[in-house]
């Protein structure tokens, strides 16, 4: 399925990441957005508010982020593609409905333009401190998908990808931007609609007698219907059976939660998306995501010039974590270096997958600005010394 040309601003644009995210959502077929103003994400919904009435979309500014994050799910069950947009403090408030979306298998997109925390922190300045929150923020066991753009172009491209993943697997998907990417203005190429491929909702096309809303086939993702189709579905955040009816038994819990888990973990190789540069034959691999993938470049180049064999592994999809690739590399390189704008989050995953075979050096940063490449360079050099 291709994008609807009516919503696609084909051409070259000079816009920031927030605006590009908005255009990505429209191109992806998103026609419902609920949001609440919060720096540095507000420009996304401001542009949505301006664009939506011209493309058949509905935007509503809700009373808070809790309301926004559940209003989008109402819209999804009425047949829309929907997203909400926020930053740290709002993201914290939305966690309740991340869990609801996971439990009810409601495809939707949460955009988090990360700023420095904790709490109100530095509202106008970047960080990557919400990465573990994106993975574990809501209570209970569930799997998450998170994608990390490093440019306005990717804010466009990966917003579409986020929608596609959410429809494919019926999960909430996080677009984990940061203030730097959100407010960075660069050239953004929007392709013609026919070159944008979309994953449509996985509709059930049979009759109501043969339908159980939460019975999944071999790929573990059930087919969906919407309110008003005459199916009289029941959807609950309680543990439920295939009919969607509450079932408070241990077997029902085990069956449901295991499937919700497996439908992502067993597809993790397909979902994985990373970009490698000179990783083959590398001695040290720098693992980055988001804006850090760009601040690391001068450091990597300098180290290479000085004769170090440095590879660059940039994670486009951070969750599910590409465990397999890190394990593989851990068995043949000397060290990982993980620069991130937090005090050590994704580095924990790199360490876990390295399983003690090679060290993983964090180049941490409390946020507020991006890394100085010098610090990442020192991290690369020290990672070798540490052995």
């Amino acid at each position, binding site marked *: 399925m291709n994008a609807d040309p009516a919503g696609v601003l084909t051409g070259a644009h000079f816009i920031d990441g927030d605006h590009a995210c908005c255009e990505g959502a429209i191109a992806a077929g998103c026609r419902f957005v609920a949001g609440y103003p919060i720096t540095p994400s507000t420009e996304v919904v401001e542009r949505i508010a301006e664009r939506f009435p011209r493309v058949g979309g509905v935007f509503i500014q809700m009373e808070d982020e809790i*309301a926004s994050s559940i209003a989008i799910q109402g819209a999804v069950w*009425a047949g*829309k593609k929907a997203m909400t947009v926020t930053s740290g403090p709002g993201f914290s408030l939305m966690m309740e409905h991340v869990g609801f979306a996971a439990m009810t298998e409601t495809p939707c997109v949460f955009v988090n333009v990360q700023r420095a925390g904790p709490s109100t922190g530095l509202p106008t300045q970047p960080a990557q401190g919400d990465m573990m929150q994106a993975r574990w923020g809501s209570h209970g066991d569930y799997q998450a998908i998170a994608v990390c753009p490093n440019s306005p172009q990717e804010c466009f491209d990966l917003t579409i990808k986020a929608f596609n993943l959410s429809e494919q697997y019926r999960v909430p998907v996080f677009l984990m931007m940061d203030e730097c990417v959100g407010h960075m203005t660069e050239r953004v190429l929007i392709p013609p609609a026919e070159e944008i491929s979309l994953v449509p909702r996985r509709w059930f096309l049979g009759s109501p007698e043969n339908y159980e809303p939460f019975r999944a086939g071999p790929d573990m993702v059930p087919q969906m219907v919407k309110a008003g189709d005459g199916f009289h579905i*029941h*959807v609950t*955040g309680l543990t439920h059976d295939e009919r969607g009816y509450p079932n408070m038994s241990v077997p029902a819990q085990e069956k449901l939660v295991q499937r919700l888990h497996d439908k992502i973990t067993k597809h993790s190789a397909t979902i994985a998306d990373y970009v490698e540069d000179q990783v083959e034959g590398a001695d040290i691999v720098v693992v980055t995501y988001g804006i850090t993938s760009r601040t690391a470049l001068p450091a990597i180049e300098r180290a290479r010039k000085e004769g170090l064999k440095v590879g660059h592994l940039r994670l486009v999809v951070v969750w599910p974590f590409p465990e397999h690739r890190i394990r593989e590399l851990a068995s043949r390189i000397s060290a990982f270096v993980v620069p991130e704008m937090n005090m050590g989050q994704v580095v924990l995953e790199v360490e876990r997958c390295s399983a003690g075979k090679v060290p993983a050096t964090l180049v941490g940063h409390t946020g507020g600005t991006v890394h100085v490449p010098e610090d990442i360079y020192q991290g690369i050099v020290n990672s070798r010394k540490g052995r």
Partner: protein
Amino acid sequence: MAEELYELDENLPVNPVESLLRMDRMPHIWCPGCGIGTTVNCFAQALESSGLDLRKTAIVSGIGCTGRVAGYLNLDSFHTTHGRAIPFATGLKLANPELKVVVYSGDGDLSAIGGNHFIHAARRNMDVTVILINNSTYGMTGGQVAPTTPMTAVASTTPYGNFESAFNLPALAESCGAVYVARWTAFHVRHTTKAIKEALLKKGFSFVEILAPCPTLYSRRNKLGDGLAQMVYYRENSEIRHGADTKDVALEFQGKIIVGKFVDRVRPTFGEAMDRYLRERLGADYLPATAGGA
């Protein structure tokens, strides 16, 4: 086991609203003497006589005893998170305006944790019907004090009696902009049914508060007898006063209950206002939303 319990004598008359209920989910979870089931019966009858298309009617609940209502109705039904039925309903309605969306939940769910959503949906005149069952307590969690618990009433978290003022919900709804506001009790089944039907057919934010006994927790702790005793209290202390000024209808512990239709007015709904305004401003550039699209 549930099936065995419900192998009924075929000669017995069938419950006239059975087709509106998910009979495969019976028996329900409510206690003997609880008033919620009575209100569901009223709702089902009201819905049936309203002529609304049942395929296009969705019901949304939050969490709690009344939060279980959605799951027993044979409609598109959504059992959401605590307090968030109204914003979920908002998304559902705006995404497909052809749907009739009903929110059915309890006093704690809608007026405490969901209070913010309640006042904003009323302010926007969101086109949803809100049915609030007020049993004066948090039943599901064991009878804690609620924003609707009358002063001096004992609850598990106010063991010496409640010293907070209770919400006057009809006044709250009216002052925020609801276009239809009524209050009845589980004793007034005919009035309740009629009020729900009116609310269902009213465009905009319509609100029906229904007082219902919670014999297991609220009545027992306050030594008010069983469910029947509370129905007697409703019968003997209710005064029908249509058009009453909502500021005069606050509830007191075992005091007089003013019931009736308090507000019935017309204001543009959120959807109508949005549509009219954007059409005016954008002219031919305005592309109104249509149903579906994913």
